[in-house]
């Protein structure tokens, strides 16, 4: 799906700690802003981000309105097994964006 950018190393040595970056294009509308006619722009934010390796949760985050637009998150993972990383973003209405990346552990 477009709007998602991932940075995951293709290979890693067993036991190595790798850096993972994930970005989703999203306005993260805080719900505190007003439009040109003074009306409050309704809140529209991503509330949850999850990353799992073949079903095992590696990292998760709860977002609130003070996370900037196009949320970029950088975290780490200890490479133990080769597998597929699934990245999942859920917004306040339950809409889900997701993408995968595979990592080979040698």
């Amino acid at each position, binding site marked *: 799906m477009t709007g998602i950018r991932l940075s995951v190393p293709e290979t890693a040595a067993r036991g190595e700690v790798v850096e993972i970056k994930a970005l989703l294009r999203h306005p993260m509308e805080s719900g505190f802003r007003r439009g040109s006619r003074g009306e409050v722009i309704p809140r529209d934010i991503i509330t949850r981000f999850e990353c799992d390796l073949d079903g095992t949760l590696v990292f998760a985050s*709860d977002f609130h*309105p003070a996370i900037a637009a196009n949320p970029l998150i950088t975290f780490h993972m200890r490479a133990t097994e080769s597998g597929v990383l699934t990245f999942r973003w859920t917004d306040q209405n339950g809409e889900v964006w997701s993408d995968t990346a595979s990592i080979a552990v040698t």
Partner: protein
Amino acid sequence: MRDKALFNATRRQILTAGGGAVLISSLPLSAFADEADLLRARTDLFGDRPIQEERVTVKLPPIAENGHSVPLSVSVDSPMTDDDYVKQIAILSPRNTLPLIGQFHLTPFSGKAQVSTRIRMSGTQAIQAVAEMSDGSLWAGSTETVVTLAACVVL
């Protein structure tokens, strides 16, 4: 002459009224959040458990020109093994409308307790990070950043 005086008075009244309106509209902004809100949000998350000011490092630029997007990096001094790891890191603000900025949930698979993202800041303030370890102990650290253009209109 008299007309001019009248006009001046009217203009002064208009200006005073306008100034008053500005003052009133800015009141909720100046009164919207303080340290007590941060403490309340912290109590909501972690209760009254003791928090030690150690082991948590918050990295922010010393001066942020734009409060709409400020790079934040948090790291916690932890071995990140199966039985001793960081469970959660909460980012708190004493000045934003909502004191809770975000929560990061880590696992033993995280390998390294370091997370970065970009946050909104409504003015100069000290951002605090509270880390909850797998044994339940709480640790905190904070860093102050000067924000030139606040995101207060946004947040």
